[in-house]
């Protein structure tokens, strides 16, 4: 009886505020619609330059002290890179011995780490299944430093002709850095094999943790706590621009000061710099300038929402190490930059990082960047999500009021009897069943891949993805199964209680997600909030079902894939898009099992069951 009393007093309050029926309950739908559009508009406004803040260096240790860059030997670094390429080709993989010898000749303490990992199913994008490799790293010991702090510069040893220049530049910088006296932190030069898997092995070895069940040999040399890291990707002798990648595992971002540092040095040295591969435009007041900013920001949102590491730096963030990937891009622009200049840029950045007294912590950890010189901080973008989330609360309030309201006059006594027993079972059963479906979606694809391969003419990867889609689709038949389990007919009060639970559940889920990974939370809110708002058993079934499916997490992902391609100016046909979609699903599952990305379990175990609850409500009998 207690909640009922509270409810009635609450609705009473609402009624006093409004004239008769309560303003919030009466105008609920329009308010919700307004909130939704206001949220979207707010979000779109974030990219408008006058509404954003200019980036500025917060860290004093990096700001005022100017450093001089003198790295001279870009050509030599390229020659080393070619030598590396030759050895790589000869060995047919990572030339471990050559790297060890070269690093030792440059006066570093050199160590290797071997690792092996069997993927749960073959990765068709990168064509790997049983991965075995070796990481080579050399530590430049800072003079008169007690091995308590370190910086990392890494370059992946990629297959083919990629990234040879990055390794060459890394070795060149190591040689140059070794002859300087001013280092206060150890610098670790790391060449990792098999990109992220190698990086994961190295980081786990360095911190002696094992989160993903990988086999690696323990590290022999360490440099204390790592303060910052940069990963370098460079595949041509000259570049036209440098791109910085910030998005890491689970949408974590490095401290904004790291991006500021990169931007400051690009400005100082005169290198074109981009983020998301988009140059900044000066004409922010024109439509095209604004759309450029929106595209850049949307790309960042989509990348962050995917929760996967978008460069080798992405895995550092878990260990509270500020890291970014710097990629050299060689396009058809006129303006070319040579390797010496990139070396000087990196030297400047490392000297500034070397000056750090504390970890980077002064600037923002939560931000979006519509361009490299502007950012949107958490205080500015959160209202956009808040406006969407408040819809859920309003609907919940409305339902609460409806539930606590006395039965309408037009109904007779029979209804009263029904209302008195909404039944715990009628709420709990759909909840449990939809979560079981979610658990099946999470577990089955990898478990049943062997069986699927046996019975159907598909590869393992296809088997996993298709099983996932099959389980997902099978969940749509759930209402019938649920009702079979239910004892009686669903009541009017029943679906209201269920919807109240589902709406609050969704609100909590999205709220938590948005706090950790705003982009994911916002994208999910964009698609799920309308569903949660309008679904009742009384809306037209077929049309609503169609809308519901369109707005389900899987379709959101599909649209995101197309949207992402569109934003990257690489539109794909539907056929290719579909294939891409399948590979994105497999990548998501792989990211989860390889690096511990949380997006797949979040969708499978929580978001999808929540969406199923709304599906259930639509087919409530």
């Amino acid at each position, binding site marked *: 009886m207690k909640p009922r009393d509270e409810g009635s007093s609450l609705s009473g309050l609402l009624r006093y505020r409004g004239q008769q029926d309560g303003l919030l309950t009466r105008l609920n739908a329009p308010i919700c619609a307004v909130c939704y559009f206001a949220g979207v508009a707010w979000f779109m406004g974030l990219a408008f330059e006058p509404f954003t803040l200019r980036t500025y260096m917060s860290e004093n240790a990096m700001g005022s002290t100017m450093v001089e860059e003198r790295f001279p030997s870009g050509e030599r670094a390229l020659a080393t890179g070619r030598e590396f390429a030759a050895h790589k080709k000869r060995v047919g993989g990572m030339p471990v011995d050559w790297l060890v010898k070269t690093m030792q000749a440059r006066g570093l303490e050199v160590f290797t780490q071997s690792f092996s990992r069997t993927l749960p199913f073959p990765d068709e994008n990168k064509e790997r299944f049983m991965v075995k490799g070796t990481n080579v790293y050399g530590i430049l010991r800072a003079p008169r430093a007690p091995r*308590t702090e370190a910086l990392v510069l890494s370059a992946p040893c990629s297959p083919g002709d990629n990234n040879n220049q990055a390794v060459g530049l890394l070795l060149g910088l190591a040689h140059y850095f070794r002859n300087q006296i001013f280092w206060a932190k150890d610098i670790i030069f790391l060449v990792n094999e098999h990109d992220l898997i190698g990086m994961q092995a190295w980081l786990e070895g360095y911190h002696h943790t094992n989160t993903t069940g990988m086999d690696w040999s323990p590290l022999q040399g360490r440099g204390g706590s790592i303060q910052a890291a940069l990963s370098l990707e460079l595949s041509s002798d000259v570049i036209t621009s440098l791109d910085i990648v910030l998005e890491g595992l689970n949408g974590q971002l490095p401290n904004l000061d790291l991006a500021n540092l990169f931007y400051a040095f690009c400005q100082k040295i005169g290198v074109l710099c981009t983020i998301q591969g988009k140059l900044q435009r000066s004409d922010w007041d024109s439509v095209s300038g604004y759309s450029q900013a929106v595209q850049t920001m949307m790309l960042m949102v989509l990348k962050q929402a995917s929760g996967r590491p978008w460069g080798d730096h992405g895995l550092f963030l878990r260990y509270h190490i500020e890291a970014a990937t710097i990629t050299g891009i060689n396009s058809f622009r006129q303006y070319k930059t040579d390797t010496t200049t990139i070396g000087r840029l990196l030297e400047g950045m490392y000297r500034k990082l070397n000056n750090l007294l504390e970890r980077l912590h002064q600037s923002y950890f939560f931000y979006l960047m519509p361009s490299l010189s502007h950012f949107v901080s958490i205080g500015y973008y959160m209202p956009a999500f808040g406006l969407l989330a408040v819809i859920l609360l309003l609907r919940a309030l409305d339902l609460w009021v409806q539930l606590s309201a006395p039965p309408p006059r037009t109904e007779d006594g029979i209804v009263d009897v029904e209302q008195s027993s909404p039944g715990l079972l009628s709420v709990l059963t759909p909840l449990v069943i939809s979560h079981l479906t979610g658990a099946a979606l999470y577990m089955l694809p990898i478990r049943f891949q062997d069986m699927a391969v046996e019975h159907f003419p598909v590869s393992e990867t296809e088997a996993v993805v298709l099983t996932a889609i099959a389980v997902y689709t099978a969940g749509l038949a759930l209402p019938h199964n649920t009702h079979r389990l239910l004892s009686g007919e669903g009541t009017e009060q029943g679906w209201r209680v269920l919807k109240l639970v589902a709406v609050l559940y969704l609100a909590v889920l999205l709220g938590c997600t948005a706090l950790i990974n705003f982009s994911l939370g916002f994208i999910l809110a964009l698609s799920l909030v309308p569903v949660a708002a309008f679904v009742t058993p009384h809306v037209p079934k077929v049309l609503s079902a169609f809308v519901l499916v369109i707005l389900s997490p899987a379709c959101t992902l599909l649209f995101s894939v197309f949207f992402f391609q569109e934003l990257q100016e690489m539109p794909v046909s539907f056929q290719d898009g579909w294939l891409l979609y399948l590979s994105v699903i497999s990548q998501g599952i792989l990211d989860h099992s390889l690096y511990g990305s949380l997006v797949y379990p979040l969708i499978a175990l929580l978001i999808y069951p929540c969406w199923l609850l709304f599906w259930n409500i639509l087919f409530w009998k």
Partner: protein
Amino acid sequence: MAAHRCSHLVWLFLLVSLSAFLLSDSQETTLTDDNHDNEAENEQAPPESAKQTAEQPAVDERRWEATEVNEVIPGDAAADKHDSSASPTAVPVSMPQPKDDMQEELVIRPLHSGDIYASFQFRTLWETDFTKGKKVSHYRLFPKSLGQVISKFSVRELHISFTQGYWRTMQWGQPFLPSPPGAELWVWFQDSVTDVDATWKELTNVLSGIFCASLNFIDSTNTVQPSASFKPLGIGNVTDHRFLRYATLPREIVCTENLTPWKKLLPCGSKAGLSVLLKSEKLFHSSFHSQAVHIRPVCQDWQCKTTSWELRQTLNVVFDLHTSGGAKREWSFFKMFSRTLTEACPLASSSKIFIDITDNPQEEQFELSPATPLLSQAVVLGDRRTFSVYDLTQPITFGTMRSLNLLIRWKSTEGDMLRPLLHGERYVAGYGLQTGEIHTLMYNNHPFRSFPVLLLDSVPWYLRLYVHTLTVTSKGKDNKPSYIHYQPSKDRVRPHLLEMLVQLPPHSVTEVTVQFERALLKWTEYTPDPNHGFYVGSSIISSLVPSTVAMDTNITQEQPLFSSFFPCKEESSYFMRVYTEPLLVNLPTPDFSMPYNVICLTCTVVAVGYGSLYNLLTRSFQIEEPNPGLAKRIANIIRKMRGVPPL
């Protein structure tokens, strides 16, 4: 006048012979000391039979040099002699011998990495008694500031070191005197001290002043009393660890301001002798810098009837090949110290330079110029080393240029270093700000001998160790320590102390892990730069390591058969102390700009909001009469005087 000079000469001769005796005496003393002191290298060991012929003339020469030095001594000493010789009848048989004695020494070891290790040692011996209540007021070579400290605080032994950098055991081998990064201080007090803690507190503050270091930050939260790891190095058999205090400050940064007071303790300051080389701009342009002061009582003679105080000042520095413009692999005094040597310290009884040429008997690795005929052999840290010796008290050492600029030119870069038999590593495992795990790795690289080590860990209280998670494993098996001394921490009062005696199996890695929880500090307890992290001092591994000489199983060469049956020669094991890296641990840190924002906001709200409201509420409002003009006022005064009501 002639007679006077004659008697002067006679007295000189007497003095010379006496000092020669003294010299030989002190050599013996060093020998006996070495039995007590395992750390000190045995550079003065008697020459081997093989080298005896080479060494003999050197000893003779040294005696000759001693006479010359005495003649050269200007100033006070000569004046003293004049005074004493002026009245030859008044001089008793036990003439005023110098009861104090000073030796200086520089050992240079070219390292395989191309770097170079230079170790200075200055030793002052003084036969006096600080402890027996009588006041010592006349100081000659021994620094007065330290003498007063010893007598005031009843110090029995004092060891203090300031180190900048970490000794890279795997590249450089063993140092002659190990020290942890930062500052380290350990003191044995006399058993007459009643309140050790108060004395310790006062002592650290005084030392902080003497050495211009932040030793005053040593308090009960970083002081421990190790039960087994630190034994007295001087004479005396009191080993009650209630009188021992040990503390490290891993964060202490060592720089010129610490070097200057250290140099001032030397008898010759930085004016003459080896200390001329100690120029800070070069000493701090290096990979490793460590300076230390060790004070202890030692035996004066064989029977140990009298004791004397030994002050040993050491300075170790490693110069880096690469950062010194290492295009040419060569080292000279000028390149290392930007100075050359021109004389020995006139107050020193011995002044020598040793160059480690063990790996270079035929000059195949590096070339040494000017060459010296003097050689010396010693067992240093369990390894027999050969040294070229330059005696600075001989003018011939300086050649015709009157200056010594030793040059070491590398010829080949090959050559393997003997792997150090024992070394340690430490790191923090895990991520996140709640828990973590300290891993300490101890490597025993001996191919077939196992030996026990004492591990000492002192962890600040804000890392709350879970001792039940303590594991010691070697070769994948549980290794049960035979002795564990654990003192739990008390929040804000004292640190954890963990001492263990662990047997290291041959050729193995022993891993000690213990989990900890990071405490949330009070907001005033954070350092000014809390996001830098908090330091945990090095753990200390002390051990008697089997000697490398004894490890040599192929001993049948060049040895008589009767002497080579038992493998253990000379010192079968030697003492070694290894320090691991300090740790830098991040604790959960609040956003310190937030209180600032809150304070700003509150102040604004109070000032504007509350202030104006308060103003409104407390002020009584009156309608003020408009101010009458000056003319009107004057008119009113006049009217008042007239008795007419004002306007």
